[in-house]
């Protein structure tokens, strides 16, 4: 009798555990991701905050507002925000898995510029309303606009800017900053020949995303075009950029370690003086003045990206944005949160608390003018040249296209292919994808 009772209790408890596991109530995150609720510590105890609703917000650590900022939002709107801090790499996977099952991974999610094409094609994002005033002041918004629909609003600006080490130029007897890509190449050769810098050009060549995007903006700033209107590669432009990279590798102006180390490690060489020239993220403006990041403070100057015959007239942006998932049940509250988060006041505040570069040019200008962003160099001037190299917006097959591009470039870097062969390989794949 006792045994039967124990057995029955065990079965009941097991069934209860399983039933709890299948329940719809949110449980604590099992992935080790940090989850916090703004209601704790705020004055919206009990049911007071429910009037404004509640939302979940999934973003990487650098996008998480402070507790005070979130509390101010909750106080103002009555909307409670549950923050789910997730590693940037994992957000897309989580979004894909949830959306494939018709679920919202969160009400508000991080949307990287490179995901927007596929998210739009998969119909996972809710279109957002943006005023004409904001549209005019936020050039990176174009990247998140497909067929006239704004799918996400950028909160962190990241556009390509060039940097060079002025002291090394002086040591090598080079007077002026480079205006064209040919001058960059010639100056790098001089730096190497004079023994000032062994590998002056920082160039990501590993098989990863940064390698594809580098080729894109190199071609874009060199020739003003990357893709044809039908989505295929523009041969003249992309091949010229590939041959430029091939020449840099052949002349050993690029560190061999760049072929296998991460793209960020390749960029960071300029911060230690082991590279002289970089075209890279805007975050290097602040990194180049930070003692923890940089050992050559005062030597790095941000300049306009070089072009073919003079400075480039365009630059590519790789911003991050916030969007509302189509499966969200709290769309209005989620939209209100994004509106608040990307407002001019918050962009200014987030620059101070999260070192986010504003996406509103008016805010960026204000921060540069009042000295909050130091060593800005050509940062503001470059921001006004932001444009998208994708004629029809970021394509839905971007991930597959980028994979084909970075693998071909990596093979060229490793000496398995010439620039022509690498181009032929990536062209075949991109043409096939564009035709689909």
């Amino acid at each position: 009798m006792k045994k039967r009772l124990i057995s029955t209790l065990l079965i009941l408890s097991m069934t209860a555990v399983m039933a709890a596991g299948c329940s719809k109530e949110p449980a604590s995150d099992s992935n080790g991701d940090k989850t916090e609720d703004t209601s704790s510590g705020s004055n919206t105890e009990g049911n007071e905050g429910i009037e404004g609703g509640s939302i979940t917000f999934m973003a990487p650590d650098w996008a998480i507002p402070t507790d005070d900022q979130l509390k101010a939002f909750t106080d103002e709107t009555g909307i409670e925000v549950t923050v789910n801090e997730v590693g940037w790499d994992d957000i897309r996977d989580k979004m894909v898995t949830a959306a494939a099952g018709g679920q919202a991974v969160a009400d508000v999610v991080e949307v990287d510029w490179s995901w927007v094409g596929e998210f739009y094609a998969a119909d996972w994002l809710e279109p957002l309303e943006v005023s004409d005033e904001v549209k005019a002041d936020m050039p990176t918004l174009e990247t998140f606009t497909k067929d006239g629909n704004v799918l996400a609003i950028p909160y962190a600006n990241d556009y390509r800017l060039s940097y060079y080490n002025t002291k090394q130029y002086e040591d090598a007897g080079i007077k002026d900053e480079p205006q064209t890509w040919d001058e960059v190449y010639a100056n790098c050769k001089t730096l190497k020949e004079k023994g000032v810098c062994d590998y002056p050009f920082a160039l990501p060549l590993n098989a990863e995303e940064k390698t594809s995007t580098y080729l894109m903006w190199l071609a874009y700033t060199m020739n003003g075009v990357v893709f044809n209107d039908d989505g295929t590669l523009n041969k003249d432009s992309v091949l010229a950029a590939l041959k430029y990279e091939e020449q840099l590798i052949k002349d050993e102006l690029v560190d061999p370690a760049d072929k296998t180390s991460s793209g960020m490690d390749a960029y960071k060489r300029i911060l230690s003086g082991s590279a002289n020239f970089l075209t890279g993220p805007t975050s290097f403006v602040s990194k180049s003045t930070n003692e923890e990041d940089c050992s050559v403070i005062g030597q790095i100057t941000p300049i306009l990206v070089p072009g073919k015959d003079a400075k480039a007239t365009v630059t590519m942006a790789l911003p991050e944005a916030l969007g509302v998932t189509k499966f969200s049940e709290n769309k209005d509250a989620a939209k209100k949160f994004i509106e608040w988060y990307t407002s001019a006041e918050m962009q200014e505040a987030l620059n101070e608390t999260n070192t986010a570069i504003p996406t509103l040019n008016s805010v960026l200008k204000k921060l540069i003018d009042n000295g909050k962003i130091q060593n800005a160099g050509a940062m503001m001037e470059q921001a006004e040249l932001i444009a998208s190299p994708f004629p029809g917006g970021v394509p839905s097959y971007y991930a597959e296209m980028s994979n084909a591009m970075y693998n071909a470039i990596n093979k060229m870097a490793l000496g398995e292919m010439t620039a022509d062969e690498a181009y032929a390989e990536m062209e075949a794949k991109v043409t096939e994808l564009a035709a689909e």
Partner: protein
Amino acid sequence: MRKKILPYLLLSPMILIMGVLVFYPIIATFSYSLKKWKLTAPNDIHMVGLRNYAAILKSDSFWYSFQNTLFILAVVVLLTTVLGFLTSIFLNIDVKWSGILLAVAMLPWALPPYVNGILWKFVFSSGYGFMNKAVIGLGLADKPIEWLSSRWSLLFIVSLVVTWRSIPFTALVCLAGRQSIPGGLYEAARIDGGSKRTIFQMITLPLMLPFLAIGITSTSVTAINVFDEIIALSGYSDLGKNILVESYMTTFSFLDFGKGSAVTYLVMLFAGILGIFYLRSLNKEVEY
């Protein structure tokens, strides 16, 4: 009647768990693999029969990944079996520090695979790696060697890293097998004049074969399913990708759930066939 129902009732939670977490995904994955199902084309999902399998088996990318998988499998199984077996023999020697040695030998097994990969990336990094510093310091090379930039050297390093992680489990299983052999058998063999070599060949090895089979099967599954170490060492590069990376890329990066499910099924079939082969050929009863 109650006696007949009770066993099924007791088994029902486990049957439910297995059904939901194992059998349902296996069946669902197979049904996905028969569909054209790309998440970026939500309005174009339809049955295509075995066309996904045909496309995969015709693709150069799949066969390239399959070759890489076979290479890793062969090296990992060979090295893990030999080194794991030898480690178990050493661990079986009763010394004062046996317990500590056993704990130390288990450490690589406890390491998360991605951490394991990162750790070894520092060793083989072409810029600042320990291996290059050692090679240059010993005068064996005058400039850094790019260990991770050729296909076969990369695959060999991946195999070494996986071997390093797999040895403890095989050693532990073999140690358990070695310690389960009755001492009387060795005593009888010695009385009959058996040499150390004969005793090893006629007693130790045959009686440990079933345990080796477990070790080899587990190692093979590990070697086929290598993912983290490859990503840590070479990212999502074509150079070192195996069929699991191919499957992940197709499914979660390119969002092609139809083809991705078909690749997953092929991986599962391959691992299953290999497992059955090992167990049938190695798990034989030994009688004395």
